[in-house]
């Protein structure tokens, strides 16, 4: 992968962040937009930053592209580190919020997110809802991966998505989310340099 490695003399976490904030964010946004417009199809983010470990490059890129002081981030405790603290405070420019209910972006592992109180919008303003950036173990069609059949806007017929690292609780979460439409949260699933969009409009069956 074409991620720049840190040199011994670099300041800590110095290579987290876009070196060309304007054009790097533009390219990253298009990748994320494609992901959300075509649910279930993995998109590859270009390596424009060092990943803020333990977060993936894709999750780091999504936060750099979309979060700021007006759109705060809540990280689940298991993904907090000096690097993610640097990412949120210095690169994104947002103080981490103390409660998931105040966050525009909630980022971490599903196990730590599923029980959270998450803003799902209001009937008049369903857009005032959280976006979840959920780290996964990948999207390869392996036997123990959760297989999901997706349909709805952005999907031409039915799309098959494999998600490694999750069980049926994740599928139920997605189904309950979709059942609230037009309320609900929107998901970006991440692994390495890959991002998959699962907006609330996507209907999910276990395949």
């Amino acid at each position: 992968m074409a991620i720049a490695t840190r040199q011994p003399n670099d300041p800590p976490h110095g290579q987290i962040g876009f070196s060309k904030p304007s054009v790097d964010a533009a390219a990253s946004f298009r990748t994320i937009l494609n992901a959300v417009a075509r649910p279930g199809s993995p998109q590859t983010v270009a390596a424009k930053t060092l990943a803020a470990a333990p977060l993936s490059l894709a999750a780091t890129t999504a936060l750099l592209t979309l979060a700021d002081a007006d759109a705060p981030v809540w990280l689940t405790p298991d993904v907090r580190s000096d690097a993610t603290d640097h990412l949120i405070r210095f690169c994104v420019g947002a103080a981490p919020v103390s409660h998931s209910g105040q966050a525009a972006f909630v980022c971490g592992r599903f196990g730590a997110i599923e029980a959270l109180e998450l803003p799902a919008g209001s009937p008049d303003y369903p857009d005032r809802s959280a976006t979840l950036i959920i780290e996964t173990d990948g999207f390869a069609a392996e036997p123990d991966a959760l297989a999901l059949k997706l349909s709805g806007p952005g999907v031409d017929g039915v799309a098959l998505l494999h998600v490694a690292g999750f069980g049926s609780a994740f599928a139920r979460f997605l189904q309950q989310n979709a059942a609230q439409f037009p309320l609900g949260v929107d998901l970006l699933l991440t692994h390495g340099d890959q991002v998959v969009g699962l907006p609330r409009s996507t209907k999910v069956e276990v395949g």
Partner: protein
Amino acid sequence: MSAVDDPTDLTLGSEGSDASVAEAKGDEQIADLSSDAGDDRIDETIDGYNFAYLDENTKRMIRRAILKAVAIPGYQTPFASREMPMPYGWGTGGVQVTAACLTPGDTLKVIDQGADDTTNAVSIRQFFEKTARVDTTTRTEDATVIQTRHRIPEKALTEDQIIVYQVPIPEPLRYLEPRETETRKMHALEEYGLMHVKLYEDISRHGHIATTYAYPVMVEDRYVTDPSPIPKFDNPKLSNSPALQLFGAGREQRIYAIPPYTKVKSLDFEDYPFDPGQWPQACALCGAEDSYLDEIITDDAGGRMFVCSDTDFCSRRRAEQDAAATSEEGEQ
């Protein structure tokens, strides 16, 4: 104030004919080529402007609104519209959505009522050539992003394209209910009965639904949505399109979306099904029988003819016909 600092330098004035705009464009391209010599790197700032004109905070805010709009097809997502160096009537909503989506690798096409060469279309194209250094084209299939006022190109769009519509009035219920709080409630409760009553009044008055532009649609069986003032002829192209469709209203500060492969139904009644309309004649220039036609006046004596509104579609059909005729002559 230097030219770079002066926002009026980018102002899209209405002065000057299309021809003078085109001339200026030619000069600028020559200047750009010379300044690019030996530097193929795309800079963060271009001639002193941030990439695609808007600052990063504004683009992030618009991008977040676009993602929510895509996630809730047909729903009008509010955004904080910025002053653009052009008047509202020039599609500032569409320009902001385009600015938030463009990358340096894009190829942009801009059309106004189907034409690539009106002052409005040329000016917006020049604006992005200047502020984002993107390539531009008039060929529909070569574009990755298409900004449009009031038309959808005749050539079918693809999965690799985004079409951005300029929207003057995003709320399809506005002329039934002026209060925003009330129309929000109507959308929340799917209270669309009034809309049907209005259309049915049309039928009882005119014998058919008289609405021919901005004909309201139902997106994915949930939100009644204004398709922007495209002719109803274009409505069938909204449904199940492989392309992502984004709508920007600058003055009204709304963004909405129709994702690819989304069901879009023009409102109608069982006994009065939606009719996109058709012409009794073909295009007087290219002979197309399946395109949207504009009536143009040809002389002072009231002569007129009907020609394709999509200038790219029409001129290329004629070029193909000319080439075919020439090769036939050559064979004889």
